């Protein structure tokens, strides 16, 4: 749906391939690459045109601010202070004076131009290698003016991809649960926002408890748990049309839903008589299949990106641990053997890692391990945190944290945080209210 809204024309101008800059994203953010994001130049007529429609004084600067902010928060880049720039944006976009940019220690330079053409927003941008004095990439987009923020995100993704060799994650959204009110009686609503926190929107009113929304990787559908009429069930929601429906017809609580990688199935738990087992429902023919059958609690299922395997947590060994099985429920293998309890396994979109929550000696950790359980690496420790969700490129995890209350039971809060796979670049993601249960969308423009 979003793709229809965004009329996006990519005009690829030939690029020079033998650039020198490479950013190693496996290394952490110890030495972020210094780069200059020159404000996109704009002629006076276009500036006035956009000011009228978008109520933004200079849309060129606004878009470049989005790019700058994205690149900075990635932890891999260090956008330099604009006050130090010597060359005017319009001239720089034609032909940068590389000595000037070299002088302020920029290794890469982003320039561009914005035009108001036939009531459309036309943006071109160029990425330059300052040391090699070469153009690395040049692209132009045309879209409706209201999509200006997305243009900033798409430019950020293109720059990230060109400099790191991996797809970006900026033109994405986060669905999460907004929380308000006292800890004993929280009001929870589904909410959605751009990856950078902009365009926050509430999708439910807070009349009933809602939990654990997850994006369909293939469309703008969301699955989540709602206590509508005090019957906790998994629901399917189309975030463009607002239509929703119960998933399946179960005589009890269904929960912990997630989509299959192709978006055609929902995998979830069904609790009955003190046991929770894993089921799938095919969204095309509505056929329900039972995947596990064990007297234990089997929950938090997540597919491998090829759809052939499922990871989940179970207390069949006596305590909550992580398991992997084939997608038909056969060959169940326990993979977590460290000290403590392990839960909420989520398969990386790259396929090689499983992110998890660990509880050990009263502390909660977010960590990753290989899919056979080897190479466990804990990324962050806290009083309470859980439910990691991967960025679509598998480089960043988003999760939520809750604070410890004081002796009077006051001071509770829940916030979204993100951390790089490297364990560096931990950041709080600002939300208008308290927040939990984040889920990261796929790239919107793919």
């Amino acid at each position: 749906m979003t793709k229809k809204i965004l009329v996006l024309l990519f005009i690829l101008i030939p690029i020079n391939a033998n650039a020198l800059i490479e950013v190693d994203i496996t290394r952490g953010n110890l030495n972020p690459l210094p780069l200059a994001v020159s404000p996109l130049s704009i002629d006076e007529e276009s500036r006035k045109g956009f000011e009228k429609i978008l109520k933004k004084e200079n849309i060129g600067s606004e878009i470049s601010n989005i790019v700058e902010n994205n690149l900075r928060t990635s932890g891999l880049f260090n956008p330099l202070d604009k006050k130090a720039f010597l060359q005017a944006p319009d001239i720089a976009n034609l032909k940068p004076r590389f000595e000037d940019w070299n002088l302020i220690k920029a290794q890469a330079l982003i320039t561009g131009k914005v035009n108001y053409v036939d009531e459309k927003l036309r943006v071109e941008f160029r990425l330059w290698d300052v040391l090699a004095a070469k153009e690395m990439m040049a692209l132009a987009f045309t879209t409706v003016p209201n999509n200006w923020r997305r243009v900033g995100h798409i430019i950020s993704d293109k720059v990230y991809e060109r400099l790191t060799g991996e797809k970006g994650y900026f033109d994405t959204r986060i669905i999460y649960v907004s929380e308000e009110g006292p800890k004993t009686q929280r009001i929870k609503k589904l909410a959605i926002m751009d990856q950078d926190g902009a365009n926050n929107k509430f999708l439910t009113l807070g009349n009933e408890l809602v939990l654990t929304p997850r994006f369909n990787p293939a469309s703008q559908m969301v699955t989540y748990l709602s206590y509508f009429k005090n019957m906790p069930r998994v629901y399917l929601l189309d975030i463009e049309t607002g239509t929703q429906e119960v998933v399946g017809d179960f005589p009890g609580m269904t929960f912990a839903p997630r989509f299959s990688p192709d978006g055609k199935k929902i995998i979830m738990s069904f609790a009955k008589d003190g046991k929770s087992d894993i089921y799938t429902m095919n969204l095309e023919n509505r056929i329900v299949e039972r995947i596990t059958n064990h007297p234990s609690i089997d929950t938090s299922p997540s597919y491998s990106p090829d759809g052939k395997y499922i990871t989940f947590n179970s207390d069949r060994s006596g305590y909550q641990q992580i398991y992997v099985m084939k997608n038909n429920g056969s060959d169940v293998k326990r993979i977590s053997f460290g000290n403590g309890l392990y839960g909420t396994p989520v398969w990386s979109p790259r396929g090689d890692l499983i992110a998890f929550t660990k509880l050990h000696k009263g502390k909660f950790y977010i960590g990753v391990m290989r899919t056979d359980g080897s190479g466990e690496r804990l990324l962050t420790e806290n009083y309470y945190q859980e439910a990691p969700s991967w960025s679509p490129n598998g480089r960043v995890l988003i999760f939520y944290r809750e604070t410890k209350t004081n002796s009077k039971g006051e001071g509770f809060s829940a916030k979204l945080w993100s951390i790089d796979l490297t364990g560096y670049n931990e950041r709080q993601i600002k939300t208008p209210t308290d927040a939990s249960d984040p889920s990261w969308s796929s790239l919107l423009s793919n």
Partner: protein
Amino acid sequence: MRLNKIFKNTLLVLAACLVLSACATKKEVATDIQGQMQGDVYTGTDTVEYLADGVPDRVFFATNESILTTASRETLRAQAAWLRKNPNINVVLEGHADERGTREYNLALGERRANAAKDYLMTYGISSDRITVLSYGKERPVDSGSNPLAWSKNRRSVTVKAN
């Protein structure tokens, strides 16, 4: 075992804090904790409401457990007797977990706890038709504290009149 250890450590830390503190009110809290928990199961009555005279509405559980204690079984027998005397009353068993677990696992754990209570009521002659199970996981704590006593109050199954 591990969890017991964690719990004991926490108690030790608490005890240490209390020794260091000269504040009298805090000492009272310490006695309270000792008087209100057995193992890590809540045995106090702070949060308990009554369905009828002598019929407590809730039972409490140990960390990660759904086993009914002797006291819990006594409470549930009183509930069963009350339900037999009031055949028109149906109940919802609301199962809860403390905040020290992952959300989804806690939903399942709350369901398991409420079912433990349901099974016991059924063995005392209450038809399953009269009982609905509803798990809230960690979503509806009664005590917003972040300490072992608060958590013990929150690990519960509450019997609520449905009509």
